[in-house]
């Protein structure tokens, strides 16, 4: 692994422990500024809530999901901390990729599977992750990582459930990855 990263020029990644410290400082900054951690699925939820409201103005009264959302996020759902943060993620990811020479339109997959198979599984995985993030009140960022930083018991439980399940199922999906 270390030999490989040395030989590939344009793909050099950050040392993972340094990356971790930097990510921790970003998370610390979020807590210091906003009093809350990082997140990702919450921004998707905001977009979903906005579109549901645009199509059905009465949804807040008829759909309990929307009612629950309105209760915790009054006002315009797009005026949310996580929406602005995720717009930043797109910019930051793009800039890092541009600097490192990694901008490329492609389907990344194991040579043993087709692009089509990769995309079918990506879609299915996305659906499950989207659904699970709503049930679990946050994804790997908002619930597991940010929750762990503030020692939330729920954050630790969700983290163990996510990684434990993925490890338990890894055998069945090995052809997709190795």
């Amino acid at each position, binding site marked *: *692994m270390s030999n490989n990263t040395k030989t590939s020029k344009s793909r050099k*990644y*950050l040392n*993972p*422990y340094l*990356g*971790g*410290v930097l*990510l921790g400082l*970003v998370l*610390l900054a979020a*807590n210091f*500024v*906003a*009093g809350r*951690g*990082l997140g990702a*699925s919450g921004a*998707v939820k905001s977009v979903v809530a906005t579109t549901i409201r645009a199509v059905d103005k009465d949804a807040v009264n008829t759909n309990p999901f929307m009612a*629950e959302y309105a209760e915790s996020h009054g006002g315009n759902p797009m005026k949310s901390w996580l929406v602005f943060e995720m717009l*930043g*993620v*797109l910019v*930051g*990811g793009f800039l*890092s990729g541009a600097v490192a020479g990694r*901008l490329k339109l492609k389907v990344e997959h194991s040579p043993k599977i087709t692009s089509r198979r*990769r995309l079918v*599984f*990506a*879609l*299915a*995985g*996305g*659906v*499950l992750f989207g*659904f*699970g993030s*709503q049930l*679990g*009140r946050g*994804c*790997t*960022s908002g*619930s597991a990582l*940010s929750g762990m930083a*503030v*020692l*939330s*018991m729920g*954050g630790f439980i969700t*983290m*163990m*459930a*996510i*990684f434990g*399940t*993925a490890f338990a199922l890894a055998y069945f999906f090995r052809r*997709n990855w*190795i």
Partner: protein
Amino acid sequence: MGPLAPNELISENTNFLLAFFIGIAFGWVLESSGFSSSRKLAGIFYGYDAVVLKVFFTAAITAMLGLLFMSLFGWVDLSLIYVNPTYLTSAIIGGVVMGAGFIMGGFCPGTSFCGAAIGKIDAMVFIAGLFIGVYGFAFTYGWWEKLYLANYLGEPKVSEKLGMSDGLFGLFMILAAIGMFLVAEWAEKKFPREEY
């Protein structure tokens, strides 16, 4: 002093602007650590690449220690920091569903946006899936509401539940992380995979 927004030291709009800049840093760190690549992310589950574990736990510990020290110095009021509530049932079941999504899709929501930002089509398709999943939950919420609200335990800290101080728990977490890092370094040597 901190946290700034809950203490009303900055306006709502300044808070949103800072959210955007924090997001840029978040996206930059994720991408430059390799989190825009699903095969790199999935590596942790097969041992060939443990970057997820290393970055994730180093970050959690850095932020946790940072908050504890900042609280000690009086720079941040921990009582104003949001602690995720614990709904035991949905935390577990939601996590299990997300774990299945992770091993199938190779991304989590944050990393998929990062991958999409550099042109990964599989990440864009994953994001489309995220939207379908969230819409699906929104329209079937009634079916899951009981499950969603079951076993609410308040906002307990894991240190409280274990009957130890935050600092002592932090020490145990650091020791656990070092143990995992040693295993991870060993696994990467034992299960190498060609870079491509």
